């Protein structure tokens, strides 16, 4: 299977991204809590990209692909042509520091790293590709 969604970099499109993932994966017997966590992680990655690499310019487009290379393995590819925003290069701030500094940001990267099994970056035809892999156990029945 392979699904694709093209989105303008406006935060109002995040809801559409969440719906696209849910619709694409509805027949995959992914436990509900796990599916919700996946939706959250992709929302975080896309909003990070929209804000930091595209300054929420709705004319800038990103592509989201969902691929199932093998049973129980899902790959989400986010393709764009902005500045690379490599979350592996960021050390997540400690929760204590975030609380102390009354900061609202910094949590998204932590969420993505806890939810996804792999986060990799590459490029193809001059575009950046961020690949997020998630292994999951199918629901019985």
């Amino acid at each position, binding site marked *: 299977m392979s699904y694709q969604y093209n989105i303008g970099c406006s*935060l*109002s499109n*995040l*809801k559409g991204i*969440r719906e696209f993932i849910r619709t694409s994966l509805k027949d995959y017997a992914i436990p*509900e*809590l796990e599916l*919700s*966590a996946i939706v*959250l992680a992709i*929302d*975080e990655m896309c*909003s990070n990209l*929209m*804000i930091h690499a595209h300054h929420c310019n709705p004319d800038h487009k990103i592509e989201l692909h969902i691929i199932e290379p093998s049973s129980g393995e899902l790959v989400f590819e986010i393709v764009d042509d902005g500045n690379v925003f490599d979350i592996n290069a960021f050390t997540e701030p400690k*929760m204590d520091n*975030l*609380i*102390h500094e*009354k*900061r*609202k*940001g*910094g*949590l*998204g990267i*932590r*969420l993505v790293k*806890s*939810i996804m099994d792999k986060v990799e970056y590459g490029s193809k035809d001059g575009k950046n590709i961020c690949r997020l892999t998630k292994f999951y156990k199918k629901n019985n029945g």
Partner: protein
Amino acid sequence: MVQIKRLQEDGIDTLAIIGEIDASSSIELDMSIAKSVGEGFKKILVDCSSLEYISSAGLGVFMSYIEEFKDKKINMVMFGLNEKVANNFSILGLADLLHICTTKEEAKQLVNELSV
């Protein structure tokens, strides 16, 4: 989209969140809490029974008030979180840093006990 309704009774300000909070709507939550704090409420309940989704932008808003609440002796208790929303708090360990109850009655009791 999110809608936040405020209701005041017995010195408690209740914020009912209806809908989804993501990076596009977390500002609404921030403004509602700021309003409640600005009006001097020391007891705040957050009704999450109609909160369908929350991303880090919304979780970050709650987190950013933890210190201020401590300084100003404000107590905030949340209740009615569905399993998926509660899970998002748990992944970050935020569930241990905030007061979260199941029902409104429990939340009301806790906010009153904390404020003694």
